[in-house]
């Protein structure tokens, strides 16, 4: 079966890419398979678990529900783009310092949801953190240490 390909140009982690994608290709597959950005994980494919969360034009979205063909001109930030100039994002460092990581499979999605939150609201309350991360499932940590990590960054934010 031949599928018609679409050419699409968008920005991933600060770099412009031009790709040929299938009309039904999900952003998740483009990232993982065309761009080898495997930090973005697939957990449920129906937008429920949040493991595939990336930041699209400033908003946290499940990349399993986004068609790549429709994001021409957009800007995508993935977990691989959080670390800048060899320096971890404060959220990444806090996840290490506060033991917010166990198996690590939900971690990239959690970090992207948390990052999107802090972009718009640098000093969120505990309740606002919980609301922002409601769409990210974690089965290991019980969430407590994830909240503590984000709170620590929110507190130290200028």
């Amino acid at each position, binding site marked *: *079966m031949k599928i018609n390909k679409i050419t699409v140009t968008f920005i991933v982690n600060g770099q412009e890419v031009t790709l040929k994608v299938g009309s039904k290709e999900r952003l998740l597959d483009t990232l*993982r398979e065309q761009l*080898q*950005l*495997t*930090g*973005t*994980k*697939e*957990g*449920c*494919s*129906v937008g*429920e*678990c949040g*493991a595939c969360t990336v930041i699209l034009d400033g908003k946290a979205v499940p990349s399993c529900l986004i068609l790549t063909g429709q994001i021409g001109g957009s800007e995508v930030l*993935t*977990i*691989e783009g*959080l*670390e800048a100039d060899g320096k*971890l994002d404060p959220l*990444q460092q806090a*996840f*290490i*310092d506060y*033991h917010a*990581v*166990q*198996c*690590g*499979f*939900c*971690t*990239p999605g959690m*970090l992207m949801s948390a990052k999107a939150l802090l972009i718009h609201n640098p000093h969120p309350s505990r309740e606002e*953190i*919980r*609301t922002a*991360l*409601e*769409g*990210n*499932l*974690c*089965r*290991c*940590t*019980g*969430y*407590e*240490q*994830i*909240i503590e990590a984000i709170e620590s960054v929110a507190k130290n934010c200028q």
Partner: protein
Amino acid sequence: MKFSEVNKPVKRVDAYEKVTGKAKFGADLFFPNMLYGKALHSKYPHAQIIKINTEKALTYPGVKAIITAEDIPNNKFGVIIQNQQVLAQEEVLYIGDGIAVVAAETKEAASEAIKLIEVEYKELPGIFDPEEAAKKDAPLIHSELEDNQVVHHRVRKGDVEKAFTQAEVILEREYTTQFVEHSYIEPEAIIAVPYEHNSLVTIYGSIQNPFSCRNAVANVLKVPLNKVRIIQNHMGGSFGGKDEVISSMAARAAVLALKTNQPVKMVNTREESILESYKRHPYKMKYKVGATKEGKLVAMEIKCIADSGAYACQTPFVTWRSVVQATGPYELPSVKTDTYGYYTNNIYTGAMRGYGSPQIVFAQESLMDELADELKMTPLELRLKNIYHNNSITASGQKLDNHQVSLEEVIAKAVKASNYIEKYIEYNKSQLGDKKRGIGMAVSFRGCSLGAEATDAAGAIVAIQRDGSILISSGLAENGEGLKTVFSQIAAEELGVDIKRINYMEVDTSVSPESGATVASRSTLLGGNAVKNAAQQIKRTITEMIADKFKVKSGDLVLRNENIYNKNNNQKIMSFDDAVDLANKLGVFLSAYGWYKAPDISWDEETGQGRPYFTYVYGCQIAEVEVDTATGQIEVLKMVAAHDVGRAINPVTLKGQIYGGIMMALGYGIMEEVEIASGYIKNTNFDEYLIPTIKDMPEIIPIIVENPDPHGPYGAKSIGEPTLELGAPAIANAVAQATGRRIRHLPLNLERVLLGHSLSKGGTKNDIL
């Protein structure tokens, strides 16, 4: 005792790669020339396979091979009883049984091709209730067996019949629990690579127990163990769940890889994962308890029936842990317990965090509260009158005389932190409005490690490299809990070096010593001791080498702070690096295999008497809830968890275990149920199978209690599973106090709280499809 590396909140050694997206999980691996495998699953829970036609599917562009049961050299596998089919041969026994597997050049081609496989079935009546399966005239699930019983375990202590005649109060109750999905966020993933590095096949993926997987694959391929190499990747959670289902997937991928001579990758969708992978056993539990008016327990009679589903899987051992722990941590002169497992055509059941304890702890701790009500005592009073202390004799006749039995301590600490006594009195008063509060407790004892059903030993390699950096390899696998960090801390502690020197290797079955499985909350205890043993051997080598050269007694030398000191005068003799240099020059070997075999235990299958476990842990959790009696909504407000862990090697990762265990227990208690009707599974993704989100989190107060155990490394025992088994009964007891109504079935969902029964049960195939 002062430590430098253990008993400290050391940061996880694998955190950096996990927060940067660099950590490679099974699905993240790509090999040149790789094919994608996809399995076709059964259409019916029980049917005869008349014919499979793969011709059309084989012509689909990109398809390289299709296998069915006929292509599998040895189609049966299993850790305990070898009766699980790699692919269904003559009959499908449950809805997730595999029929055929396609290998194709793309995922899409593989998915399309399985739709073209034509299977002719003859649908057969199924058995979906273990009590039906137990009947004498029940049709056989496995035709080669005499009946549908997987296993029957017994405990016989004292004369129960006579004891009940002397009881002043007798209570009989029945409790049931549900099918539960592990819900690891990473679906199963496997890549089988043929003829890599001298192995017939190398398998990568999300493999909880690499050695169990190797056994299964080698048996299925009919080749020696040394031809099959399993390399574990980062694991996206397991909780007992990535064992048999992964072995089956690995075997299928291996057969396809050898048939095509190309790497074959298989990654389950969430739907495939829930449909195919085993669940936590549902139990039906009949409890009868006798007590004096003063609240002293005199007898308990227990019958538990577990639904094993289509295969034996771990049922024989899961129900064994249940039989040992079924009475709870209470002194009882007379006990009669029977646990059974039966085959049905439901999805099969296996290991899941708790392993036969969450069910019986729910029953026994609900029962204790019901008995307390009957006796007009508080739940706390009744428990304190009956709990184990040092030198208590368990239902299995084991005298608890080799470690601190700390139930009183964990209860006292949890009671204090939760204000249990005051709140219990307050919530017993009549409450205005629809929202009612309650507080409930649950306590348990839990045998550490595997117990008397299996050989219990573990190994580790500690190898110091030329530059003083250190590699550790163990047969136990990091599943996300923090094992690499804990083992690294132990090696650093023994060698007196900074943990930064250590790199913990992934499990590679061709290199790491076989250590049994990473199960039963045994890794810190067994594997920790093995790492300690290896490090101690190297320490001895280093001190003897230095003693010889500097003419001092090796016993006077200590390794700490990256140096070697003479302990008599605290004088530094040389740095660790210099010692390694010296060893390099002298040709001294600075690597060691460590081994630890657990102390002897015993078990009499007929009477259930013996020493089933060599040591135990104790815990108490207290839940505070608010129930909206108008809607049935339960909100868990607060959970206090006090656990005696022996010694916390890493207090912060340990707290992570408590938080995570409590949230999983909360799901078990009030939310989760794999809804199965006539063998069909209704909820196959997270939009219908709901697990706790960050919004469901109560306030959680973890309390670590440390009574070092003589057997554990630095006194450490277990934490993973104890955290999970107490939450549901504590919540159930709190809900009972809040509403005045006892619910004896899990989960305590809206309908059960409001109506007393679930609306989603008893559907037919047509209702749900």
